[in-house]
């Protein structure tokens, strides 16, 4: 039962990664690409982490995985912000 749930979560996470990657390749402009990539990948990694947490042998292991996800969330949100701000400044520069 746990195996089935965790597999479903991981497959769903991979689906989000796929969508994010297609968005990165196909969307027309930088902001849209960033939007697709960060949102989809953060959720994809979250689902992946949840799937792996179900497989972890003890609580500490699961908490470490959760910590990794939170750290990636913070880092990717910040880097998306930095890239978007840089692009925006470049636009407004005379």
């Amino acid at each position, binding site marked *: 039962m746990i195996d089935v749930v965790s597999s479903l979560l991981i497959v769903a996470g991979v689906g989000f990664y796929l969508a994010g990657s297609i968005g990165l390749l196909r969307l027309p402009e930088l902001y849209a690409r960033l939007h697709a990539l960060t949102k989809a990948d953060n959720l994809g990694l979250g689902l992946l982490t949840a799937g792996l947490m179900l497989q972890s042998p003890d609580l500490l292991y699961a908490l470490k995985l959760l910590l990794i996800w939170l*750290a990636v969330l*913070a*880092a990717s949100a910040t880097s998306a*912000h*930095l890239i978007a701000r840089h692009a925006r*400044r470049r636009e407004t520069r005379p």
Partner: protein
Amino acid sequence: MNPVSLQLFDVLLLLSIVGLAWASLASPDDRRSVILFMALGLLLALAWGRLLAPDVALAEAAIGAGLSGALLLAALREQPRREAPGATEAVAKRGSSRLQAMTQWVVTLLCAGLAGILGWVLMHIFAGPPLDRLTQAVSANLGVSGVSNPVTAVLLNFRGYDTLLELAVLLTAVLGILALGPGRAGYQPAGPIFDALARSLAPLLILVSAYLLWVGAHAPGGAFQAGATLAAAGVVLRLAGRQRIGLPPEGALRLVMTAGVGLFLAVGLSLLLMGRPFLGYPPAWAGALILVIESAAMLSIAATLVLAFIGGRLPAHGIPAAEPATTRREAITTAAAPERGGEEESGC
């Protein structure tokens, strides 16, 4: 897991590694090359993980992908972006292009030869009887090493000499970096969002490095991985525009830089005085001695890597921010900060 799918994964991984290496070398834009190189480092870490060498995977991810990438990007920041080759450059290039092409061919041939020899050696290793005498020797003596992680046992106990000399190499490297003079200009204070990230990331990185050091006794981890993670905290603080980036004042910094080699040597020599071989720890103390040496080594490694990222000495008053100002507000803040190179002659 199905071994066929794993094999498929391995083939994909290998193809991506070769493809990324090629793309990184072939890219005309230096910045893009560095980013591709960092992605290559992450995939290499994954490959080390697949080879069941998690210690190397951790080191590759932290040093090969993370810090090397940061160092390369910092070096690129110093030089102006490469312009498209203009008319004058094209004329200047024509003379040297034949020489360049020849050099490229020679280097390519040498690399191909090296790859061939390596492949031949590898084939012989796999074809011959398994060479696991060393593995057996390590596992037979793991009990007296003071740790239960065989990699740490080899690095800090059985082959302690090698690690001592590696730390000496690092110390020599940092002396060279310090001889370059004052470091590169710092960064503008970061905006609120990156500042908040740096504020929470730096303590987390310090905690993770302490964890990696501690866990190295019985699981993958150790001084090099921990030192690289600690250095990452310094890199984040520098990027966020902090002045002292977490480094202690000059005198203490020198102590930290030499602590790794110094403590290692001190332990080895005092064991000699006690009538034991150099670095031959008594089994009862081995665990504690390894932890002490590794803690000092971690601090030295982190200080070395952070100083490499700065690219020189840390001025006594911290690092003044760089001058390129794109908006008026930033121009005013930089004008208040001291110009680079002016008053950095103090210290050291």
